[in-house]
């Protein structure tokens, strides 16, 4: 575990130095600031716009950071062959993967925190108060990023850089649509198709679980039980993805 922490620390520092990480963060902060441009709207509408733009921006840019950083963290080790050096030391492959995951989780958390601070600042500036439910939305965005990091590492363990990027982005999109597909399957008369759709619905990560923006921006509250269930879902899916990652990495020739 200690070795995993060392790898995590190193991964964290390397990711912070990545130009793409810094640029994405700057763009994210610019987007958050740009929500101020809607001053021609009524105060209520402007606040809603700020919340929508900010939460969507935080989710999108965090996902971008998580995918690019995680993919690079693993793929660069393969491409530069530094992994052979690392694994020739008394370092278990599981510690290596766990360390990479923890490092990426830390760097993504830092990105989410920085964007959240700016977001909270904007809201406080506009309405001099901040609803607790907005913290719920930020918490679930962070939980969603853990799943995305784990999935990216799992795919990067066996696939090329281009494939990993395309696959994970595609999964991010599909993950937001599975609920719609599943709700439509209720209209189908073919029981076999319903079973197949239910199977895929349970396999593909359902990122809509983490999407509570629509409720919180209009002042709705989210029960703590929902947060716990969704966080539990995220943890289980992260564990699945890490097991897949470990499986492909364990017997990979380096």
């Amino acid at each position, binding site marked *: 575990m200690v070795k995993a922490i060392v790898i995590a620390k190193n991964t964290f520092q390397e990711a912070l130095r990545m130009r793409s990480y810094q640029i994405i963060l700057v763009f994210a902060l610019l987007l958050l600031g740009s929500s101020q441009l809607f001053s021609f709207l009524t105060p209520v509408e402007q606040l809603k716009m700020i919340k929508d733009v900010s939460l969507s921006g935080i989710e999108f840019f965090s996902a971008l950071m998580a995918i690019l950083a995680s993919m690079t963290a693993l793929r660069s080790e393969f491409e530069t062959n530094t992994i052979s050096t690392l694994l020739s030391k008394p370092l278990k492959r599981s510690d290596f993967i766990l360390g990479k995951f923890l490092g990426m989780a830390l760097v993504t958390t830092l990105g989410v925190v920085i964007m959240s601070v700016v977001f909270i600042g904007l809201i406080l500036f506009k309405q001099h108060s901040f609803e607790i439910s907005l913290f719920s939305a930020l918490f679930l965005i962070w939980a969603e990023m853990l799943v995305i990091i784990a999935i990216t590492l799992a795919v990067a363990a066996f696939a090329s850089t281009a494939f990993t990027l395309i696959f994970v982005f595609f999964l991010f999109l599909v993950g937001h649509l599975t609920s719609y597909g599943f709700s439509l399957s209720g209209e189908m008369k073919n029981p076999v198709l319903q079973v197949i759709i239910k199977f895929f619905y349970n396999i593909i990560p359902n990122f*809509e679980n983490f999407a509570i923006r629509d409720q919180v921006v209009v002042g709705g509250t989210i029960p703590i039980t929902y947060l716990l269930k969704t966080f539990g879902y995220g943890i289980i899916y992260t564990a699945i993805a890490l097991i897949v990652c470990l499986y492909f990495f364990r017997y990979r020739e380096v």
Partner: protein
Amino acid sequence: MTKITYRNSSIAAIVLLFLLLSPLQNKIDLQRKQMGFEQRLLLMPGQITGSLILGGFKGLAADLLWLQVEELFHSGQSYKMLPILRSVTFLQPKFVTPWAVGGWHLSYNISVMVKDHPEQEKAWIQAGVDFLKEGISYNPERYDLYFELGWTFFNKVKNYAEAVKYLELACKFPRPDYIDDALAHAYEKNGQIDRAMETWKEIINSGNSFSPTAVRMLHNLKTYGSTIVPEKK
């Protein structure tokens, strides 16, 4: 551990975790339904909003569409607003403003455009009323749309009984001060003078921002039998 044993253990662990995931997903789905998270997909291909919707950013898409509504209204293209208003309320039914503003556009601004055709004017006013009622079905726990509907009945439709009904509903929720004053006026217009006076007394006792108005209204009602002071001849 051999490769086959490791593979079998990994597969067993993954299957077990997916078996845990399935009932948890069912519980999450049930709770989302109870909280009113509807699964609504609006297909608008070829536009930025369509891409945002597909990416799961429905709120942002609804905001962009809402900006279009504002632009169309200010440029006098009121009819073009209607399908976009529908899209906004479809994407985010809990966003109260489009329901309120949409109801106002239908009952007031669009109906006035056809004021020379009484049947059409009546139909547009009714369309506004129906739109607000639909909004209430998605937002039954807020005063906003009950007030909008009550006000539409009071001011536009002149159906004071319905106005009283909806304004009373608005008063069941946390609300701004003017709602109670509007209710008192609706009682008066509906012939429920005692209820009107009671409501104004409650406003006076509460000490809210409409207390001075309520004092005046109560005085006028007792003195002249109406809140409106008759003109001196």
